[in-house]
């Protein structure tokens, strides 16, 4: 996840500081390799260093939890984070700047898929090695990646199309239940659906199919919202979509064959980190292409002025329908993954609280921006995880942050910014790349 945080220095530097200028000339590839070095260092030396410093374990989320729980350990934890992360990342990034730029340039001459695959592979390696240290990190990573998918898909409706939709947990619930019914019914022995119908070994390979089905069910459900959205806008659509959320919730509560309010458990353990990571990468890639395509521009046109868009030959009905179904599809996939990470779903999970969480991530991160969604989802998930020891004060700090963001950046942290993968991967040794 540091990868996302550290993307910001790779943007063109605004300040004139020497440090920033030096950072600005390291390409994304360099940063990724530097972070890879740091996580490798932690993997091999972290335990020894923690023992040496008298820390019982490797600080799990960059030491924040340790500091909040035991303030006395703060200097040691800060020292650990400095020695394992800050120093190696800084040094390696500086040292490999030239080779990384050269490599990035060579890579960019090839078809764009190859450098993209290389970057993603390094990013995955970072997450994998970082998560290898503890199961808690892996779980946090998985749920964060799922939050990214959810936030991004809600941003398509609330940010790019400018409608205020409250039905996202409903789509998520549809996807979660459809996927769970598929996998539990076919590959697991449980008390509702009886013994497994197909050999369990097949399950992992058919899991993407299950996720796709979950997404499709959610997309079908989205029609219920999309059709009224032809005639209603603003507050009224928000209310309709809220009603949809309640309809889905009480429908599942009354469906005995999926367990009713008791929920559905014993999903097989298919949502591994590679699975969640590839789903998330696919989601970011496809949504990014979607919003930058003609139909994405049509969404913006509908948001800015529906009548004008109609006059300019934008088929507004089709646009709305596609946007709703597309966003719901990814929410459904995210829901399916969520159900298999927890291995339990119940309807109460998909209520107003979930809605507030996703909305907060969208508006915190920034409307109309893929960057923003990633930043919002990652920062809010990590923050709420790291501040857990504060108990009730956490619920003062996070809303306060939201209020501050709304005052100083009313559209969110990184709003209206295009996510251009190609530019992101460019070498940065020439000043003309630093636009």
């Amino acid at each position: 996840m540091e990868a996302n945080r550290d993307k910001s220095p790779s943007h063109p530097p605004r300040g004139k500081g020497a440090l920033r200028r030096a950072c600005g000339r390291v390409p994304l590839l360099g940063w990724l390799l530097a972070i890879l070095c740091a996580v490798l260092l932690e993997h091999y030396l972290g335990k020894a260093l923690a023992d040496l410093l008298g820390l019982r374990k490797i600080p799990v989320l960059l030491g924040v939890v340790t500091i909040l729980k035991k303030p006395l350990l703060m200097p040691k934890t800060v020292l650990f984070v400095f020695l394992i992360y800050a120093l190696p990342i800084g040094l390696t990034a500086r040292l490999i700047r030239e080779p990384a730029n050269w490599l990035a340039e060579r890579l960019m001459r090839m078809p764009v898929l190859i450098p993209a695959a290389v970057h993603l592979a390094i990013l995955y390696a970072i997450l994998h090695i970082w998560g290898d240290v503890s199961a808690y990190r892996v779980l946090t990573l998985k749920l964060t990646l799922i939050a990214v998918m959810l936030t991004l898909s809600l941003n398509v409706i609330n940010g790019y199309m400018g409608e205020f939709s409250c039905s996202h947990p409903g789509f998520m619930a549809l996807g979660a239940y459809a996927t769970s019914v598929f996998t539990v019914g076919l590959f697991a022995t449980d008390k509702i659906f009886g013994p497994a119908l197909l050999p369990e070994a097949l399950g992992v390979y058919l899991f993407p199919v299950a996720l796709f089905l979950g997404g499709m069910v959610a997309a079908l459900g989205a029609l219920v919202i999309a059709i009224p959205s032809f005639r209603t806008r603003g507050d009224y659509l928000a209310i309709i979509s809220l009603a949809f959320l309640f309809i889905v919730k009480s429908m599942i509560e009354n469906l005995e064959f999926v367990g009713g309010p008791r929920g559905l458990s014993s999903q097989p353990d298919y949502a591994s980190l590679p699975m969640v990571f590839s789903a998330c990468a696919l989601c970011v890639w496809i949504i990014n292409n979607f919003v930058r395509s003609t139909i994405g521009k049509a969404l913006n046109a509908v948001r800015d002025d529906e009548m004008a868009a109609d006059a300019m030959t934008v088929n507004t009905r089709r646009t709305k329908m596609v946007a709703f179904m597309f966003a719901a599809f990814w929410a459904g996939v995210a829901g399916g993954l969520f159900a298999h990470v927890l291995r339990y779903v119940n309807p109460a999970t998909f209520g107003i609280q979930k809605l507030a969480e996703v909305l907060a991530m969208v508006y915190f991160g920034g409307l109309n921006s893929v960057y923003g969604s990633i930043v919002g989802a990652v920062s809010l998930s990590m923050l709420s995880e790291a501040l857990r020891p504060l108990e009730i004060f956490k619920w003062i700090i996070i809303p306060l942050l939201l209020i501050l963001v709304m005052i100083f950046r009313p559209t969110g942290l990184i709003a209206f910014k295009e996510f251009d993968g190609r530019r992101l991967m460019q070498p940065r040794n020439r000043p003309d790349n630093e636009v």
Partner: protein
Amino acid sequence: MRKGLKWIAAVSVITLLLAPVAWGKAELIKVGINAPMTGDIPKVGEGSKFAAQMWLEDIKAAGGLDVGGVKHPVELVIEDNESKAESAVKTNTKMITEDEVLVIVGPQSSKQAVPAGDVANNYKTPMISPWSTNPDTTKDRPYVFRGCFLDPFQGPVVANFITNEFGFTKAAVLYDVASDYPKGLAEFFKKAWEELHGPGSVVAYESFTTKDADFSSQLTNIINSGAEVLFTPQYYNEVALIVQQAHELGWKKPIVGSDSWGSAETIELCGAACHGLFFSTHYAAAGATGKTKEFIDRYQAKHGYIPDDVAALTWDALGIVGQAISTCGKITGDVEDDRQCVRDAMAKIKEYDGITGKMTFTEEGDPIKCAVIVKISDKGEYEFYKSVCP
């Protein structure tokens, strides 16, 4: 930059020197508490936390937990699960893999205990949920236990009590269809009642949805059905509304409830309307004797209110944990071996004498224990009425 580095070096050397010396020989025992400190039911989390802290005081006063003649220091790891399923799973994972707790107490509500129990079972860590009533929490999970009786037991208890006490044959049920616990209990009650009095003896079986506040249409149906008693397994906020509205509509017959009534809030919200009603629960605060009274008095003196059943059940769960660790015989420091040892010791516990009754675990990890029928006195106290054993 260099000055900064020097400072960091200096500060870290000083703290290294000041670091507390490791505990002597005895291994530190860590007990995890997974409780909803924030979210929908913070009062439940507070009760769990307070009970756990009282338990820790006792252990500290005794100089540590006695395992095979060695006194081991004990530390509580209290984590907030925000009353969310995913947070309960994260918290359990964190406590097991990061804090390396020996045993976990919690989560309290079933929506968290079911997924969190899966984590505990996968990591072979003993977990005891004091309050969760969903059968799935412990089903096929050798490492997961619970501290309360189950709904398939409580339903018949209430049905038998009404039949023996009042001799009624026609009952009505009003429950929340969207909530796991009331729905399950309503079904078990209906089944037990119909076994006693034949099919059709539950003359009205009415439902509503969570957060409904007006029950007049359901209550009118119930009154018109000719039922002699109303059973409503609801939480305290709904109990007050249901009882008051029933009385306004002219219902004068008894209303009977379940352990979800057992919060101090019930009587505060309901007032005189609830006086004289019965419910089944885990323990009765008024007129308690012996250890139970001792616990209630201590809790009340410290925190200013009478502990509800969650606190009492958490207290008992911790007592069971303590006994299991003691009877395990020896704590080696290898947390995986110790967890296995504690789990085996816990499964073998016979007739644990807790403040909510005597407990023996079945193979599933569910306790066999007695239920208590409580009468709400005219002073609004929960008085012991009778005890029903399986």
